[in-house]
């Protein structure tokens, strides 16, 4: 018989760095879950993504057991990685701190697709490009759909 779900906990934790402090401690501890067990599993599964912020959805059951799914990193983090910048622009509307190509936007969109409410890669790309602009990152070149229109 399937275990009875008691609820979900959603957190964003840096890969390989889960520890029993807040917010993990209070979020899981208040449900009577074994926090150290979660930290060991999460850190073990994210050794390849050390330090990268990863959303995690924990399903916990009435018998105090749990399992969890690690999602793709937030688009803003992937954009920072792609541009190798340490933070967004001090004045995102005036000063651009980096640029990404549409190919990079596509890569990020494809990575993020499983976690986005988008039906097509193009719509995911538009969403990622919007986040880039808000951070002061330029998307260089023409969008693929504009090129297609011209052709």
């Amino acid at each position, binding site marked *: 018989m399937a275990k009875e779900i008691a609820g979900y906990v959603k957190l964003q934790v840096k890969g390989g760095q889960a*520890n029993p402090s*807040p917010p993990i401690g209070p979020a899981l501890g208040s449900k*009577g879950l074994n926090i*150290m067990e979660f930290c*060991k599993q999460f850190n073990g599964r994210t050794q390849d993504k050390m330090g990268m912020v990863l959303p995690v959805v924990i399903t916990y059951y009435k018998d105090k057991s749990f399992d969890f799914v690690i999602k793709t990193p937030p688009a803003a983090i992937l954009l920072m990685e792609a541009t190798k910048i340490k933070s967004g622009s001090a004045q995102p509307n005036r000063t651009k701190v980096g640029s990404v190509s549409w190919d990079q936007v596509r890569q990020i969109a494809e990575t993020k697709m499983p976690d986005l409410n988008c039906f097509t890669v193009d719509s995911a790309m538009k969403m990622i490009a919007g986040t880039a602009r808000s951070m002061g990152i330029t998307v260089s070149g023409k969008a693929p759909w504009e090129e297609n229109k011209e052709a």
Partner: protein
Amino acid sequence: MNYVELSLTITPDYTDILTAELAEVGYESFVETDEGLNAYITEDLFDEAALEAVIAKYQIFTAIAHSWKALEKKNWNEEWERSYEPIEVGRAVRVRAQFHEPDDSFTYDLLITPKMSFGTGHHATTWLVMNEQLSLPHTGLDIMDVGCGTGILAILGRKLGAKSIVAFDIDEWAVENSRENFALNGVEQDAEVFQGTITDVPLERQFGGILANINRNILLSEITHYVQHLLPGGWLVVSGFYEMDEPDIVQCALENGLTKVRTDTRNEWATVVFEKTS
């Protein structure tokens, strides 16, 4: 380490961006709330000026309200620790809390009050290492426990006949907790516990056995140090990584002159025993 909780009231469009920005200035973890975002950072890294600078960047586009507070240091695992079940490793080792009745049919009775530290035997890696310890020589040896957590492995080492134990962890809870558990099990004599890493152990300290239940990345970067502290003929037990990472660990150990003795697995987690042959 005490933590600071930052609460941001922002629109959903900016939660990702603020998460990325705050992660760059040291915030460790995040929770999306109905109002926006909560972010968590250790007190020593909290820098109000850096926070204001991040917020100022985006305030021209969107309204951002924020507040922060220092959080109390607390054992968040208390609820689980109040009712955990004893763990058995074969018929030799039983790990229990003080509220469990002892069972004399086991050779080694270990009392553990975890207090937010890792190592009760419930996790596959702790179980695996303890299981390996049962077949490794301990009598008269100096043993080192790297990343000791509750101190459970060092305690078993001592009960198996180790002459002395050196245990350390980077986490202050773990250090405090190991001391308590050493006392609970009557193994405080010739048992040293400190907060730190392998680089804090003087090179002249040599051990007949080293236990390291940590994680893949730390092991890959530290195996070379363990080898320097291992006496010829000494053994090293490593764990804290998944089966898929075992080949990398083995390769690293072999490159450092160790010989693989065996690998054991449980619930996809692995433990490997090595020996220093020369």
